[in-house]
């Protein structure tokens, strides 16, 4: 069981262990400003997933962007980022120096804007794989591709020929049957799927006002853990390609459950906010874990 926390591979990418970060929940560049070189020396993730990059720079949503709920967080960050050019110029070289494989998360409104983004990012040798964010509930992009199998398939048909690098499709949990979307992505050549993204939620106050500047957002954290387990196990049972599992991981036992449910790799998201080294703790707990058959684990 302790090998659970040992080396693994994801779409041919060798990883020292199965714990990576969830997109948008750990900014390695900002973390270096706060913590200095300690971030490099004790980097907790076996691969680094960037925050989602869009073709043009985005300022993000108006504040407030955060709402704490029982055992969860609702966010409506709105994908602030420097845009493709800014990312390639200033961030990519720094991220390439982290010493772990780099997965770049990308998103665009529509296949025609997605294509050059994927092409340019994939062309960079620093990039090991791309994650296609087709699910973010915070960006009002009209159609949400990840909610329809056919839309997802169409996007993949457009993007797949552009690169030989692994394409990981990040699924939205806000659908009746995520396995259908995953199967569509797999059919059109996706190398892996990742899930779950945040669940649509809206903190509304007793006077009817919306707390978040953007009105609605997405729920993450322990509150969504069993929802993630259900979706990951359904998707993993349906597809042959590897699954990156995430959603509410706080402890080694949570990671073990996602792995047991069929994930190849587990991502830590919201937990990093409370403890920047949460992922390192998850990994070491995972390594120590001795599952009691049929029992709740003690980490």
């Amino acid at each position: 069981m302790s090998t659970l926390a040992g080396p693994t591979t994801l779409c041919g990418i060798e990883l020292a262990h199965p714990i990576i970060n969830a997109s948008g929940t750990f900014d390695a560049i900002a973390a270096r400003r706060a913590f200095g070189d300690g971030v490099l020396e004790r980097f907790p993730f076996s691969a680094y997933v960037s925050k989602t990059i869009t073709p043009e720079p985005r300022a993000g949503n108006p504040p407030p962007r955060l709402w704490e709920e029982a055992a969860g967080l609702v966010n409506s960050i709105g994908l602030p980022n420097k845009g493709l050019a800014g990312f390639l110029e200033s961030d990519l070289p720094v991220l390439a120096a982290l010493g772990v494989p780099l997965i770049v998360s990308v998103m665009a409104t529509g296949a025609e804007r997605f294509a050059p983004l994927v092409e340019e990012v994939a062309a960079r040798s620093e990039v090991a794989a791309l994650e296609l964010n087709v699910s973010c509930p915070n960006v009002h992009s009209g159609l949400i591709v990840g909610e329809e199998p056919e839309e997802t398939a169409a996007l993949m048909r457009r993007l797949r020929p552009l690169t030989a690098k692994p394409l990981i499709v990040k699924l939205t949990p806000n659908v009746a049957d995520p396995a259908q979307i995953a199967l569509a992505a797999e059919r059109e050549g996706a190398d892996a799927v990742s899930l779950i993204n945040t669940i649509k939620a809206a903190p509304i106050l007793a006077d009817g006002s919306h707390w978040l500047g953007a009105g609605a957002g997405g729920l993450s954290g322990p509150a969504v853990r069993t929802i993630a387990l259900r979706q990951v196990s359904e998707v993993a049972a349906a597809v042959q390609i590897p699954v990156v599992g995430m959603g509410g991981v706080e402890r080694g036992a949570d990671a073990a459950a996602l792995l047991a449910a069929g994930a190849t790799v587990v991502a830590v998201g919201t937990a990093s906010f409370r403890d920047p080294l949460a992922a390192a703790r998850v990994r070491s707990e995972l390594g120590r874990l001795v599952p009691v058959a049929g029992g709740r684990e003690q980490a």
Partner: protein
Amino acid sequence: MPAAASGDPDGRVLAPFGRRRGEVVANEPSGRYRIISAVDASGPMPAAGQFYMLAAAERWGGDGGRPFLPRAFSVAAAERSDDGARLSFLLEDVGPGTGRLAELGAGEGLMLTGPLGRPFSPPRDLNPAAAGAILVGGGVGLAPLAIWRRALAARGVPERTLLGFRDREHAGGHELFRCSEVRVASEDGHAGHRGYVTDLLERMLGGDSAATAVVYACGPPAMLEAVRLLCAELEVAAELAMEAPMACGFGACFGCAVPLAAGGYMRLCVDGPVVNAADVETALVAGAGRR
């Protein structure tokens, strides 16, 4: 939201990566607030204006509900002790997080990440003609000014402090200004000038040559905004220690957006919490300080 310049030549003290367990050594009432002190065995001494993300070691997050995320607090005092840095925080109990922290007793664990963020800049960096510093504080905003005043005194920089309180009940944190000269305003007139602390500031900047002034302010958003507008009008250099809702404190979540005068947002946790008053569009940050 363009990230700030790399290198950050702003005097910030870097935090050890990860969070660590400190031990609470004191928790005393101070007016309506509490002063909580903890020993941080392995962390560095913070710079004035920096903050920590705090959580109780027990009954916080994990399997629990709220409080779930850590909470941000400006460090109000830091002293070297044999066991490490003794850090003090001035805390107002306004919700589940501050409520849980307020009940911590000596010997209990306090999880801390920090020091974080951009500290105050020396007066001469803001105004080469600076004759000294004017500190303007209100409510729990006294905290970062208390440690800054000490740092200025240690460097021999003359400083004048103006503090505002709503009413007798809300007056707290005075202890942190022991042995220093302070002018006070209170909205109910129970102490000092009846009215706003910005009245005192306006008078001082009027009497003074505004050209040699540098203002450092921390307090409720409305007070900060009044300071910002006044300093802009009189062209006085000013730094504001601001607040915004924070989930992480180290630039990870992009939650702590503060609108920039130049458009877009900064992340207050890494580009602040101390900001140049001229850089922000407003000090009235949505979601902060609604207490």
